[in-house]
């Protein structure tokens, strides 16, 4: 289920806008990439086909894994890597490397320069107490860097933006030297109070760093997140530096290798807010890639759900390292403002995806209370599961699936990679010995805990938010989830599970089909009755439009293909939260602003009820927002004819498989490549898709639809 195998070519008819063929508007080839913690996935649209490729992620040089996966895809569409890349107009890459680095707290050693008196801002974290009763869940935030790496600097900007105390440049110089030489910091973050209002001290400190330690990567809090509330801004700055080396390793190696292999198209990256950003921006502000991989998947899920006529979808993605889930209601994703990483606030607005450490590489172990656990620690791709034979010694979820017979060790990657089942059995037995369990009991416990962890996450995004999961279809993708999707759904009473056609590379597919989207926001803070409001808004809008078009052009998108959605955020003076009000394309006039102010109480009471508008309080225009979107030419799938007669062709015989409860049973195995649209099987059964495996439990059935998705249904 892991490694470089493609799926079968899918016949595509028609692009989104024009028929494919010689038309210049039709891209010759597009590549979507998702660099995960364990696997690198690729989805290629070329010559009317969609093909996929998969390889192990190579953290020392991410480009190797990407190129290997592209190579696999190329071989499936009569291309070489070079010939495919030569035809490729754009390559968009999503990645989970930022999310993984932050959630596992694996990053560079950050040296911090901070306003004197406030070094403990990271410990206080805006108040670390969670709104929960349970005292056992109240902890101090983990130290992202040792307390000795936080250096206090005499300087102070105050609320009006003026400098009360000038920057002590000598102190900055000394602190930078100490951080480099004594503390052995690797990167820096500069975190001064009120820098979003006046960034002069942060910028000057960066100049000093450039003199003292020119090669150091520095993040200014005023650059990554120029917004009031220092703890969010400072965490953003620290995390941006913390994950920078990981991201640069991806960006640089990828760009260099692609160029060396003849790629001359546009390279861009997928942000956690659900749109593409340029390589330059990703390198400078790598934190924007937080939750990027899952954002690609969610985009793909919405496209697929629309095509299947489903509106409420519970999305699950399980790869090697993590399980990500989110709810899509009415085909709309949920955005979460002021996001947090492990309880530490970073302020950014990203898709609301719950991520837990449950993947194929999640390690089974014993915690300090002597209780068996699975995850959140992961074996990653190196050493990977024990059965890979790369030096892993602790059993993983994948090892349990191999021992249970769910994954065929002799046919892994079409038999190209031999899995060491014996080694997996030994590691699992060593784990089980802690509890006096035999092999079957140990395997059953690991799989059971994995399912429980994921069911809890799904419960959190549905029941915890007052949504009945039984009203949803589960859309399950990622290399590992088809093993578990039906079992998890049973726990929650969900009766239908869709495993998409390109399940194993679905996030890469989502990146490929996503429209171009970039969000821009500018703070203004001006009263709608201010005589200068129209001019101020006009100036800001002109600047925003220019920046958006420039960035779109850098991503290969012309002005004529771009569409702008404008909005303003309004509130009564004194409030801290705003209401979005859409704005037309035409300029805002003084009269228009006045009309907005007059209609605001009514709009406000529509949201919060009668009697709630703040009578007599002026209305403030706080932010101007712009979404630039551009339709991209995307592959559109044509339904294939149904053929119910394929079961025998797909029959690969039977295999002994450990079912829930620890009982062995002979179970029919089907070859996914030969399972045609319209055919169906009853459980228990296993469908071997080469780069993923579907487990159909005893009371479930599975059919293939006209788009070659698998639809599993619970038989009541």
């Amino acid at each position, binding site marked *: 289920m892991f490694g470089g195998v493609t799926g079968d070519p899918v016949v595509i008819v028609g692009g989104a806008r024009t028929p494919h063929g010689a038309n210049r508007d039709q891209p010759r080839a597009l590549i979507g990439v998702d660099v995960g913690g364990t696997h690198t996935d690729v989805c290629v649209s070329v010559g009317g086909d969609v093909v996929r490729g998969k390889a192990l992620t190579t953290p020392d040089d991410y480009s190797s894994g990407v190129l290997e996966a592209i190579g696999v895809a190329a071989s499936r569409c009569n291309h070489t890597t070079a010939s495919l890349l030569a035809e490729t107009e754009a390559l968009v890459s999503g990645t989970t490397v930022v999310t993984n680095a932050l959630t596992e707290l694996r990053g560079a050693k950050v040296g911090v320069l901070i306003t*004197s*008196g*406030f*070094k*403990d*801002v990271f*410990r*206080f*974290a*805006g*108040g*670390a*107490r*969670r*709104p*929960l*009763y*349970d*005292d*056992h869940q*109240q*902890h*101090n935030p983990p130290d992202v860097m040792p*307390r*000795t790496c936080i250096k206090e600097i*005499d*300087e*102070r900007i105050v*609320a009006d933006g003026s400098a*009360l*105390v000038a920057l*002590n440049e000598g102190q900055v110089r000394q602190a930078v030297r100490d951080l480099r030489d004594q503390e052995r910091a690797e990167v820096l973050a500069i975190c001064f*109070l*009120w820098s979003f209002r006046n960034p002069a001290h942060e910028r000057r400190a960066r100049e000093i760093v450039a003199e003292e330690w020119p090669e150091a990567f520095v993040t200014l809090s005023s650059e990554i997140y120029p917004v*009031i*509330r220092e*703890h969010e801004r400072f965490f953003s700055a620290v995390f941006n530096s913390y994950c920078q080396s990981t991201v640069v390793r991806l960006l640089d190696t990828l760009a260099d290798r692609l160029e060396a292999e003849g790629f001359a198209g546009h390279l861009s990256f997928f942000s956690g807010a659900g749109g593409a950003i340029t390589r330059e921006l990703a390198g400078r502000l790598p934190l924007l890639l937080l939750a990027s991989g899952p954002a690609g998947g969610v985009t793909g899920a919405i496209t697929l759900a629309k095509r299947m006529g489903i509106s409420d979808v519970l999305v699950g993605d399980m790869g090697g390292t993590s399980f990500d889930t989110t709810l899509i209601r009415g085909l709309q994703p949920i955005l979460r403002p002021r996001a947090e990483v492990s309880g530490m606030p970073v302020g950014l607005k990203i898709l609301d995806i719950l991520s837990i450490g449950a993947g194929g590489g999640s390690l089974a172990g014993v915690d300090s209370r002597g209780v068996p656990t699975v995850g959140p620690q992961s074996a990653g791709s190196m050493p990977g599961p024990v059965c890979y034979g790369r030096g892993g010694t602790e059993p993983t979820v994948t090892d349990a699936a191999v021992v249970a017979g769910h994954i065929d060790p002799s046919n892994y990657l079409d038999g190209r990679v031999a899995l060491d089942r014996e080694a997996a059995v030994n590691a699992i037995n060593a784990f089980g010995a802690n509890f006096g369990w035999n092999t079957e009991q140990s395997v059953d416990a690991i799989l059971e805990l994995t399912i*429980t962890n994921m*069911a809890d996450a799904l419960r959190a995004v549905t*029941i*915890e*938010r*007052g949504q*009945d999961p039984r009203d949803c279809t589960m859309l399950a993708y990622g290399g590992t989830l088809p093993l578990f999707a039906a079992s998890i759904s049973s*726990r*929650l*009473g969900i009766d239908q599970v869709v495993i998409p056609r390109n399940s194993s590379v679905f996030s890469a597919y989502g990146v490929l089909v996503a429209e171009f989207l970039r969000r821009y926001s500018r703070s203004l803070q001006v009263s709608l009755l201010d005589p200068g409001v129209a001019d101020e808004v006009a100036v800001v809008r002109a600047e925003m439009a220019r920046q958006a078009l420039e960035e779109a052009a850098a991503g290969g998108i012309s002005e004529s293909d771009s569409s702008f959605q404008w909005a303003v955020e309004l509130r009564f003076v*004194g*409030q*801290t*939260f705003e209401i979005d009000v859409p704005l037309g394309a035409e300029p805002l006039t003084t009269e228009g602003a006045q009309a907005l102010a007059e209609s605001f109480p009514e709009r406000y009471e529509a949201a*919060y*009820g*009668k*009697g*709630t*508008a*703040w009578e*007599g*309080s002026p209305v403030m225009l706080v932010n101007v927002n712009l979404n630039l979107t551009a339709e991209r030419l995307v592959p559109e799938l044509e339904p294939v004819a149904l053929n119910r007669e394929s079961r025998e062709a797909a029959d690969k015989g039977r295999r002994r498989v450990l079912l829930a409860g620890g009982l062995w049973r002979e179970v029919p195995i089907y070859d996914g490549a030969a399972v045609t649209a319209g055919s169906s099987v009853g459980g228990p059964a296993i469908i071997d898709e080469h780069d993923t495996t579907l487990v159909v439990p005893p009371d479930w059935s599975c059919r293939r639809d006209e788009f070659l998705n698998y639809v599993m249904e619970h038989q009541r």
Partner: protein
Amino acid sequence: MAEITTLATPGELADYDILKAEVHRKAMEEITMEMGITLVRTSGSPVVTEAKDLSCSVLDDKVEQIGFSSFVGLHISTSFLGIRALLQNYTVDELAAGDAFIVNDPHSSGALHEGDVGVIMPYFFGGELVAWGYCSEHTIDVGGSGVSGFAASARDCYSEGLRFPALRFMKERQLSPEWRMFIANNVRAPSAVLNDLRSMVAAVNTGERRLIALLERIGLDEHRKFCEVNKGLSERIVRQRIAALPDGRFESTDWVEYDGLGEPLLLRITTVMTIDGDQMKLTFSGDPQISGPVNGAPPAILGQAMNTLQCVLFYDVPANAGLWRPIEFDLGPTGTIVNSTPPAPVSFAHVGTGMRIDKTVRDVLAQAASLSPDARIRARVSSQPCECLFLTTLTGVDRRSGSPTVVFPVAPTVGLGGPAQTTDDGQDTYSNTCNLGIGMAAVEVDESTAPVLILWRKIQPSTGGAGITQGGNGMTTAFQIYGTDQMSGTVSNNGAEVPPRGAAGGMPGSATDYKVLSDTHFARLVEQGKLPGPQTLGGRAQEIPANTTVTVHEGDVFFVTNGGGGGLGDPLLRDASHVARDRADGYVNERAARELYGVVVAADGALDEAATAGARAQIRRERLGSPPTRELLPSREIEVGVGVRVSGGNWSCGYCGDDLGPIGSNYRSACVERRRPVASTFAELGMKVRPRANGPVVMCEYFCRGCGSCMRTDISVEGEGMAPAPRLAESAGTRTE
């Protein structure tokens, strides 16, 4: 849904879908959360938007809670008490959709204190009253002699502020113009106060809209059924938890500090918890009520007690009326500080007496839980959190706006050390037990909304009590009056002299203290390009009581040093490498590391294991005056929260198993006792408790004669006798695993 379906069905509710019940419960919780979010999103007050000093509830037509959003936990009591008060004043026939009612009086309408104003809205469905929405926030002002509802110098409740006895202030969704004018005429910052009320109306509107939408979907019958199912399920878990505590009587005493009447008073309160099967009784008693505002009133007493029970024992039980059913509360006769009546001033009811209730309830729970046969219950033992709170509310004219403004700096109330847990050290930003969802307003938010300059916010090392797990540390902060000529208002602190207790031999934490400084070195330092710190600020402290009204001028500084939580378990058994790491990071000071933990580090900060072992042995000898005669139990048999055990009808040492006499006796009598004044002892250790001239506060440590371990440290007042041991029922005399 393994964990849900394994719940057995409450007898009278045999036929229901457990998943639907869970979805309904979550929907109720979600509705109250959304009410809270609405309040935050519509509010203009940092007390709401940053500190989350608010709560929201939905109640059914029996006036029983069915959903509660837990930003401020002690509000668990105020909604139903407020609605019961409303129903004393109005009949149901007099109510209509679009009505809203205002409550804020601890004596007559269920409020914690006058500053926490509540808004109640009856919800109608098909013309029938089916539910109630309740929302409360700390309102920026309520008039009276204090500012923002804190009247430190008030001598009766009549001078504390406006007191609303559950009255209608809104009809047909229109704010009554009469009430609007009356309120505006009586408060500082009238438009901010009216906007606070409008925000609360927005919150109860949201609850109404969401609940009606749910009723339209599932129907009233289904809704009522699941209200009862979920109350029954909560009640069942509460009964199971109580039954897991040993039957018997557990007692704890604490003191409320108040110095606003001339002499510094210590007012005694005692909490007795009696466990009988799956029933709990909490009996509170206290000194006679006084003419200072620290008197407790029933809403705050009940709220603090229940909230502590929830954080410690019912931590996972959905909050609804089922919580209350197995518990009997006895507040004794009226006229005491736990059950005061008018004219007693009560604007600090929840902080003054209320937070001592919190501490004593936590203590009796720790005593009982440590003797439970159930390991999961023993794991819930915790020390006392700091609960020593500096509060100030000020008013003046901010030069930026030119208009009067009310300031309530909340950040100092957040950086208070939390209770040490069996599973982890206490949290540094725990605040008080009741402040579940409190946030520390950003420096930038505080400085943009109030005429202040914040000079620092830092961890104060070693303020957390020493233990195997350590109490959370407190924060020191200073803020300067900046951008206004002068401000005046209230200052208070009811916890400078009586620090929080540890448990199972853990040490007390530091208490909170503050100073108001004038003539600091600020201007000189700034001129030199420096920012002031705790050591360089200088200045002259105003000679004022801890609880009073103050006037401060531009440049004056409030310098606050918060306390920490108590420790858990004998500090000599804390992982020495952890102490060394905390030492290097600066979370523990040198003297505490050496004298409380017996940890010796080399010049480079590395742990000196041999010297540490020697120092720890020496401390044991000093405790006993002679070398210990007994070996400690193997480390896996020592439990972090268990200082004393019961076996075979006798007390025994939790660290070595030495016999401490029959359970009818006080195990303390079998120990070596060391009584020391807290203030001077702490001063030597770099910790802090304010000294007390008449009747010093003492700590009483009890060491096992066999092994020299510390089993229990009490906090008491000179002249008090030995604290009583739990009186266990015979059925609880033997512990079974």
